[in-house]
């Protein structure tokens, strides 16, 4: 089962390497990983996805807690978190197909980020599943290049006190 973890780390050299290295060393494969700044300049947030059993997830969380640069580890459970991802997709778009593609993009609230003689670059932000659907629909037109950020997430504001995972 795929789990999403939200990890706060100290913004220090090598901190990300220590986290990703721990996954490699213990034999877990990271499905996606996004890292960036938070509201605190000395703290970064990693959102990462890992495909593993529940027992392995507990082991991963415990091992991550042992890393000195790791400040907090939380699982973002479905329904309790807001998750977003951004994608840039360069699609074959000869002039006669542009209209169709742009109409499609409007349905998904995707934006045209760049326009060339025979290609379009779309920018889309949304839930990762929405990005999957959009990608699926433009694929028949010919995707030249694609870049996705990997998902980022936060606990929902409506979840008053986020349940902290019980540490045994």
């Amino acid at each position, binding site marked *: 089962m795929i789990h999403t973890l939200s990890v706060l780390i100290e913004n220090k050299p*090598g901190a990300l390497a220590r986290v990703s290295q*721990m996954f490699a060393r213990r034999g877990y494969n990271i499905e996606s990983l996004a890292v960036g700044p938070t509201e605190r300049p000395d703290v970064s947030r990693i959102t990462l996805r890992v495909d593993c059993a529940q027992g392995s997830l*507990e082991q991963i969380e415990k091992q991550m807690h042992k*890393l000195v640069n790791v400040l907090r580890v939380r699982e973002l459970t479905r329904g309790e978190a807001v998750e977003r991802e951004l994608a840039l997709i360069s699609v074959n778009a000869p002039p006669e197909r542009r209209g169709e593609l742009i109409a499609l993009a409007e349905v998904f609230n995707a934006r045209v980020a760049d326009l060339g003689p025979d290609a379009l670059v779309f920018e889309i932000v949304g839930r990762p599943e929405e990005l999957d659907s959009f990608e699926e629909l433009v694929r028949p037109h010919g995707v030249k290049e694609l870049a996705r950020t990997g998902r980022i997430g936060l606990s929902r504001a409506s979840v008053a006190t986020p349940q902290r995972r019980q*540490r045994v």
Partner: protein
Amino acid sequence: MVTTGAGAILRSLEAEGVEVAFGLPGGAILPTYDAWALGTTVRHVLARHEQGAGHMAEGYARASGRVGVAVATSGPGATNLVTPIADAWMDSTPLVCITGQVRSSLIGTDAFQECDITGVTMPIVKHSWLVQDVEELPSVMKAAFHLARTGRCGPVLVDVPRDVQEAALEFRYPDEVDLPGWRPPERGHPRQIAAAADRIAVAERPVLYVGGGTLNAEACGELRALAEGGRLPVVTTLMAKGAFPETHELHFGWPGMHGPKWSNWAMNKCDLLVAVGARFDDRVTGKLAGFAPGVEVIHLDVDAAEIGKLRRADVPVVGPLKPVLRELGAALAARLDGRPPRTEPWLRQLEEWREQFPLRYGESGDTLKPQRVLETLQELTASRNDVIWTTGVGQHQMWAMQYLLCDRPRSFITSGGLGTMGYGLPAAVGAKAARPDATVVCVDGDGCFQMTCQELATAVLENLPIVTVIVNNGYLGMVQQWQNMFFGERLSQVHLTNAVPNYAALAEAYGALGLTVNTEDELEPALEEALASGRTAVVDARVCDRQEVFPMIPAGAAALDLVEYEEKAGLVS
């Protein structure tokens, strides 16, 4: 006080109360060695190889309970420390390694003797720092020592570029550490401790499975009080040898691959297994699925990540073992409320098994038996006050576990998790530096000895006299045993010969006492001479070859399928 980065390193060591550091200088660490020349209270023991320095620091840490310090230069100096760092990581030995690094301006340019040692060691340290600003150095040193010895002990590395060692700073050693991400547990959860006491109080066949964490926690007194209060039998792992007195009536040996049958039966036929600072290592459990089937498990450990890693714990208790064991002992006493524990029939059963399946070996023939060497060492040192044993890794190590009896904590120092051949001799040097009045004996194999024997020079010249007894069968004995048992007796690249080198002559070349033993008659006088000499001595005990270590749980087999003795003629003669 205005000083340099190098001065700050020495002042930090002094502030931490470090008595001795082990190392070897080189280009990128020159300023720090200059600071040594300018004066410090920290003794420097000059090793002949950085691996030796690292193992010395480990031996020092394990003998003293303090943090070991190793110093090396950049590049090859630092990579030579990798094996000791990995060893300390596996055995949770508190270690601070300080390495020189090339100048900041050269980092990343493949400069002479440059190596990304923080990158190389990342999977095997608790944490590491590449110090880029001299102002950070005091707080990094403070954090390094704090981290090495708190929570689960282990190695840390501080990599200091040469220009940072040379830069000036106003030195002040911080009072507090600034490690927001490091919060080891301060005590066990009272509800979990109560639950553990509930189960122990009603168990009929409990066993305390004691690991090396007990020694690191300095919790041996609390362990003993718990065992005696509840009349609980104790087995100690290789790493915990000495954590509970081995001549005590409640001690029932050592579990695992070469543990006696009665120890393994105790672990596997109990109804309640209480793991104390132990980690269910594969060498202890054998095939995990077949280990202690149906047995309820209480797991006490300071490291939450060990709990449930390999074996599910019915009652997990995360916390430092000293208060946890003390509170558990008190909670158990309250539940027993003066009633005798229910364990007496179980203890009688364990004693019966011990009588029924004693350790034994073939005594026929004129050749010296390796087990006899260990038995004789035990007899000759039994009356000595303070004996520290160190070992290499292999057959001799397993015989040392079986035949030496350690009644005191920190009296048996060995490489358990990593299985580092060559560990014993330098570890002995470090142990002697920690406890100069102790009799320090390294039980070594001929293969192991040749990996680090250059440190004889360190022992002799630094006046750290140790006795090394080589159980010399002329083979990489344990590998030979596996080839014999599991590879159709096809011996492949394991024959070292017992005469090259001439170990006694080699010892003499280093200024040590060298003695050769060929027969059982020569054994006792030679060992006595070495022990009485007060010098660094090497006793080359040429034992019969092709002797196997038994009992044995074959790799991948369940502990209950232990092979007690190889009856095949020729293996046990």
